[in-house]
């Protein structure tokens, strides 16, 4: 009888513990998390999203086809928690001007440096004759499905190549030659066989498929049905790969990852009704930061119904702007000038440091450790806004920064 009491007492204690939800970790506040699917996906779409999520997190080893030269070993390694990257996984791209024509130095391993390699294989180095070298911090990937659903017509409407309104801000689309697997949508508007790029720091990718196929190959050295050729270190005279049969991932896997990225939720806002946030947003508009960082865009039709015809708040216009000499790395893609960068969406910027190890790295290469510093680097078309920011009172500057951190 005594034994039964012992056992029952212990079982009761343990079952009480099991039933105590306090012993299990709670879900973080959703407004503090970038990752997660958009709402209103169908169960099938949600399943596809989760399949893509698994592939996004897949770590490639040498036996899986990683390399032979690469930058990182998983999508998730660069976009931890679907957020921004870190100097550890920052990409380097290079090229040179030759006779006034941009040369991405493909014959010397360009335009992207693969600074890591599999065992016994040499990594690439930057050729000595490269005139332009830029470092590109991986961006957050949340909300990209909505940006993909913005019709070209909306982007073109925002363009002002000749600065006809005289606000000092022009804004031009980057026209990109499509790759052979590109499938235009009705919302795409071609120009001389080229299409508007909208993804990447220079808007060098027309759609998410191009962005992700390129990332598989250039970042991880993973071939796919869309691009069967591995990168080799031709600088070292090597023309063979990693001895893993190609393709290393199927079209189905790539499409799953595209779907995953398309169906990530928009970055959540925080403290929207805070008095300083509201004041900061007014200042943001007043000094015309919103001239490039457009607060609202409207999506068009999408085959994912929940992405269709939605007003979104990316604080971006998807156009190229001249950002001045301080941000001119001498590197370019498509029709962009070396000083031109696509307006970076600001949504999610307040959560950047949660994927960057607690210390934010702002701007295209992570050179700015504070938002004030990042604003200070703005030149060219953003000079007026930067100067007006510098002329704000300390309190007003603080309010504007508080607003940015609420995004």
């Amino acid at each position, binding site marked *: 009888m005594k034994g039964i009491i012992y056992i029952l007492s*212990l079982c009761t204690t*343990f079952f009480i513990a099991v039933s105590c939800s306090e012993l*299990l970790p709670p879900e973080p506040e959703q407004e503090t998390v970038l990752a997660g699917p958009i709402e209103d996906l169908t169960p099938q779409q949600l399943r596809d999203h989760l399949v893509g999520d698994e592939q996004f997190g897949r770590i490639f080893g040498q036996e*899986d086809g990683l390399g032979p030269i690469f930058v990182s070993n998983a999508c998730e390694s660069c976009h931890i928690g679907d957020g921004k990257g870190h100097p550890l996984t920052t990409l380097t791209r290079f090229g040179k001007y030759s006779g006034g024509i941009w040369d991405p130095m493909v014959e010397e391993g360009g335009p992207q440096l693969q600074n890591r*390699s599999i065992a016994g294989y040499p990594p690439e180095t930057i050729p000595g004759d490269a005139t332009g070298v830029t470092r590109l911090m991986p961006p957050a990937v949340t909300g990209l499905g909505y940006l993909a659903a913005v019709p070209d017509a909306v982007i073109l409407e925002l363009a002002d190549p000749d600065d006809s309104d005289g606000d000092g801000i022009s804004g031009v689309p980057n026209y990109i030659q499509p790759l052979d697997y590109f499938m235009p949508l009705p919302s795409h508007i071609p120009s001389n066989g080229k299409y508007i790029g909208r993804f990447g720091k220079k808007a060098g990718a027309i759609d998410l498929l191009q962005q992700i196929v390129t990332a598989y190959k250039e970042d991880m050295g993973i071939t796919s049905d869309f691009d069967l050729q591995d990168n080799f270190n031709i600088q070292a005279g090597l023309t063979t790969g990693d001895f893993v049969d190609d393709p290393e991932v199927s079209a189905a896997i790539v499409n799953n990852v595209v779907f995953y990225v398309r169906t990530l939720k928009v970055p959540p806002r925080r403290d929207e009704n805070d008095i300083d946030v509201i004041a900061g947003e007014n200042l943001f508009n007043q000094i015309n930061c919103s001239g490039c960082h457009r607060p609202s865009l409207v999506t068009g039709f999408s085959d994912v119904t929940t992405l269709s015809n939605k007003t979104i708040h990316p604080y971006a216009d998807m156009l190229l702007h001249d950002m001045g000499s301080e941000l001119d790395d001498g590197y370019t893609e498509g029709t962009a000038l070396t000083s031109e960068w696509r307006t970076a969406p600001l949504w999610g910027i307040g959560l950047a440091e949660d994927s960057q190890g607690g210390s934010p790295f702002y701007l295209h290469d992570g050179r700015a450790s504070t938002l004030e510093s990042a604003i200070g680097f703005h030149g060219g078309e953003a000079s007026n806004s930067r100067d007006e920011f510098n002329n704000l009172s300390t309190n007003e500057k603080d309010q504007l920064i508080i607003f940015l951190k609420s995004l």
Partner: protein
Amino acid sequence: MLKIDMTIVFILLLLAPIFGQQDTSVVQDAIYDRPFITSDFPVALGGYLEGNTNYFSEDGVSEGFSMEFRRFNIFLYSTIIPRVRFLAELEFEHGTEEIAIETAQVEFEFLQALILRAGIMVVPIGAYNVNHDPPKYEFVERPLEATQIIPSTLSDIGFGFNGKIFWNNLLFTYDAYLVNGLSDGIILNDQGRTFLESGKSEERFAEDNNGSPTFSGRLAVKSFKFGELGISYYSGIYNSFQIEGEIVDAKRNIEIAAIDFNTKIEKLIIQGEFAVNSIDVPKDISEIFGTKQWGGYVDIVYPIIQANILGFDNSVINLAVRLERVDYNVGEFAETGKNIYDDINGLSFAISFRPASGTVLKANYIHYWSRDVLGNPTVKTAGFQFGIATYF
């Protein structure tokens, strides 16, 4: 997050054997310290099985409840002639998902202090790798240090010597073997970090991947009053630096050093282990695949009831706690000068019921705090497990 500096805890607990009590078993004999070796037949057959339930939640997301049949292991033992003995262990994990020969060794006892061992053997790196049978433990999960830093169960083909030397009231044991060793998968694997478990190529039982044997050895001293303290070392080249005799890569070495202890203070049983890995990694990937790792754990077990319970004579109910930590990548980022994290802290509690010494029912609560390589917000994982493990 655990605020306690576990390093200090481990160091303090390493001193615990000073306060220990008499116990005659040694880690070296763990493979023979199993209840099946009592038969009068020329070949003894035995084994153990282990199964459990899982209910875990990671940052509020749970996969729900599931059941797991972890292991079904069969032992074979034979005294071929006096002082020549054979031992084998065949392991089935998760049903037939993974089948492996963990041990198939022959020993020739020339002297008690000089025993030749050859075959597939459990490598003597740390105590847990040698002494890992689940019926001996109150926790369902193996310590992180013993799976993530030392890839238990690490067995390998090799040969070497072991023995025992008595001196005053102390028993010294040694093990020294050459084995084929771990291989290339330690780095550039699908774990995305330096991970010794991925270096356990099945081919190691057939041939060495680089023609350079690896040394594994352990020295231990047992005081029948205070407990046992062991140190072990494992070192060898892990990568395939040559193909058909042609050098195609630099030689890359792996070293593991471990210290282990167990003691008994009154009824309180304390055991633990601390291991450090040092791995040569190509410089261009050394921030992703760390060159140094360490981990450690301490189990503290206290029998709260020893009685006839439900008709089982000499039943024991134990309470246990485990503190553990692993750091997969010790170092700093070259560009930022900031710490590389990639670590896990763990705290676990157990209640176990042992109707016999080789049979245990376990109820565990586990909590892990994990940080990624950048030290982003800590991921919290916690859950409950009920398990059973028994020799037969």
